[in-house]
């Protein structure tokens, strides 16, 4: 009886965890998705009560929900996944600095814009040679991934773009010299770049972008309600007060308000309705998946190969050294080698990468993204390779070492010429296995601004809203990249198979 109750409690907890807040929300609630990791001034955890989310968009939704006679409920959702989350019905609205763009409008409907601003270029205070966008050719410029700013930079051309998940990292890298400039939405720059004494703004903001509230296509009536509510907030001055409170009231938004209030019919809901659902037939989809997606994705292949091969080389050499220290060094070194294995094997690769790329600069050690990616993968996999080599060496019969010693070889020579060469051949299969695993793990380095296959996949999938087509192509590319190495390993295994006694150990 008691156990049954326990199970039920567990079940409830599980359901709550899985379902998230949205499932529990009542129909009356106006649920909206956003990413509180996005930061100020949009959405951020309250510094004093971290479980509370604040931001100008929270205030906006509070006011809008009141207009609609409902209660606003925030649903946390990763920013790149806001639109898929909306379409899956995880929440009613997507509100988190979503710029109204044509490709997004193909998938979802947008409300009238609720805020307008430009893109702001930030520079190091000492920077003299950059003033405007055209000065950026040949320079390294950071921005947020999937943002309008990124596309602006791409359109400009000739700029080396680093796409970040997080504005803090971008501005840090600008301050410490890894970047030459950062281009981001003006409110972000206002909050993250302006307060930094090492940085300055380059002139006025560039262009105009407008944020809209994302609504599922087909919900025309609901969309109309949202638009009416927003207009009412503009008219009453409440929205302006919210923006002023957050210090982000600007000329662009003022013009936006005037336009919306003078000429309310200029942007009827219908205008923003997306193309009819399923406007792309499966033929068009297939043509796209087979046509222009593969070449775009292929651009990520060389970088993925480079990172993986260099990473594996580091892992193999370092791993062998660690295995030998572990087996043959005097206790302090042997213990250090053991610790290395336990630490690098026992902690997440992702955290190791963050520490190397974002952590080490704090103590003056700065690696390029490529270097950091290779080091991260190499150091991590060295722990696994060390264990492979260790077991390989232990599998070589003791008589081999004794025979070598009896011939007058020193211990080092015996290892170098007799034991290790045999062990290396013995562990070809598990090492190959790890290499394939490393290949796939290399996708993780997109978090440190490396543009490789997975990063490009993410960008394409988000741009074309095609997670399946682009995903299948990207997965296929990984598979194809791995196959030659598997074949080489098979060949090496045959070629260097240990004849005689040791083969029996397989």
């Amino acid at each position, binding site marked *: 009886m008691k156990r049954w109750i326990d199970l039920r409690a567990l079940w409830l907890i599980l359901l709550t965890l899985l379902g998230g807040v949205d499932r529990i929300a009542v129909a009356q609630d106006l649920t909206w998705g956003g990413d509180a990791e996005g930061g100020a001034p949009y959405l951020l955890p309250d510094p004093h009560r971290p479980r509370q989310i604040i931001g100008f968009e929270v205030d906006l939704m509070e006011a809008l929900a009141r207009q609609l006679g409902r209660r606003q409920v925030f649903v946390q959702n990763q920013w790149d996944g806001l639109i898929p989350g909306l379409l899956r019905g995880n929440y009613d609205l997507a509100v988190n600095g979503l710029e109204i763009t044509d490709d997004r409008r193909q998938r979802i409907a947008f409300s009238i814009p609720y805020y307008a601003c430009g893109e702001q270029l930030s520079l190091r205070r000492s920077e003299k040679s950059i003033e405007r966008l055209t000065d950026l050719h040949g320079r390294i410029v950071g921005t947020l991934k999937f943002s309008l700013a990124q596309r602006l930079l791409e359109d400009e051309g000739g700029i080396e773009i680093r796409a970040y998940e997080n504005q803090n990292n971008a501005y840090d890298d600008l301050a410490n010299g890894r970047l030459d400039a950062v281009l981001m939405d003006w409110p972000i720059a206002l909050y993250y770049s302006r307060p930094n004494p090492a940085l300055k703004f380059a002139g006025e903001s560039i262009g105009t972008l407008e944020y809209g509230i994302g609504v599922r296509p087909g919900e025309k009536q609901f969309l109309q309600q949202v638009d009416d509510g927003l207009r009412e907030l503009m008219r009453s001055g409440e929205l302006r007060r919210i923006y002023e409170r957050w210090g982000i009231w600007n000329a662009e938004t003022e013009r936006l308000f005037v336009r919306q209030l003078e000429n309310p019919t200029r942007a009827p809901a219908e205008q923003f309705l997306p193309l009819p659902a399923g406007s792309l037939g499966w033929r068009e989809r297939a043509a796209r998946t087979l046509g222009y997606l593969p070449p775009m994705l292929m651009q990520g292949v060389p970088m993925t190969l480079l990172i993986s091969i260099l990473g594996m080389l580091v892992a193999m050499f370092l791993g062998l050294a660690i295995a030998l220290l572990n087996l043959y060094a005097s206790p302090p070194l042997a213990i250090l080698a053991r610790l290395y294995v336990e630490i690098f094997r026992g902690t997440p690769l992702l955290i190791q990468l963050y520490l190397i790329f974002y952590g080490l600069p704090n103590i003056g050690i700065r690696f390029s993204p490529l270097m950091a990616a290779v080091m991260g993968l190499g150091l991590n996999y060295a722990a696994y390779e060390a264990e492979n080599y260790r077991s390989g060496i232990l599998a070589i*019969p003791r*008589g*081999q070492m*004794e*025979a*070598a*010693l*009896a*011939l*007058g*070889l*020193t*211990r080092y*020579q015996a290892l170098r*010429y*007799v034991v290790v*060469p*045999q062990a290396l*051949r013995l562990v070809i299969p598990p090492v190959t296995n790890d290499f394939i695993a490393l290949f796939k793990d290399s996708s993780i380095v997109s978090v440190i601004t490396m543009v490789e296959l997975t990063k490009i996949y993410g960008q394409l999938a988000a741009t074309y809203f095609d997670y399946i087509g682009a995903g299948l192509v990207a997965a296929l590319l990984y598979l194809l990249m791995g196959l030659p190495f598997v074949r080489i390993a098979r060949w090496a295994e045959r070629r*260097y198979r*240990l*004849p*005689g*006694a*040791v*083969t029996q150990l397989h």
Partner: protein
Amino acid sequence: MITAERLTKNYGKVRGLDQVSFSIPPAQVTVLIGPSGGGKSTLLRCLNGLELFDEGSLRIGEYEVTVGQGRSQGGLARLRREVGMVFQSFNLFPHLTVEANVELAPRIARGLTEAESTALAHDLLGKVGLSERRDHYPHQLSGGQQQRAAIARALAMAPQVMLYDEPTSALDSALTGELLQIMRRLAEDGMTQVVVTHDISFARELADEVLVLIEGRVVESGPPEEIFTAPRDQRTREFLRRYLS
């Protein structure tokens, strides 16, 4: 050539060797016999430093091996260059050809050039009748061929002493005859040899002197005619009677 004084080796409570003393003149073939567990392999391994004894002293040629020396790997390596060993299971290096097995040590430990060590390997493999097989891998050889390869490998270091642990255990009588030839020729060339064997007729044919090792002690030693026909010690008699029946 070899002088051992009160060599003692303990494995925990087990006495592998117990106060073993003997002396072997140059170019002599000495055969170690005794029941299983008597300490024959242990003694052989002490003679080339693969096993470190706990008490006593050992002199091989001009090398003095002391109890405390175990930590000095360099000293041991120098001793081992003077003492070749042929293991019971040969322990050839499976990843190298027969020729490479023979060449490896002279090149690395004696510092011979590639040409010198290759010439040496050709010469030695010819002497043990393996010229045809030099590009084969060990697993492609028969037991007798593997053993001759192992002998050539040990001889390549130009040792003054050769040790053999049960060299006939994998051989039929024809091959045992061949081995006898090789070892006799080595003896004629002045090689000091120590052989562990269970093969009494092999021992009779080969030995200048026989040491009987029982429970870690040398219970009796002397020329083969004496030991095998008129053993003085009761334990030797017992061993031979059980062994020959």
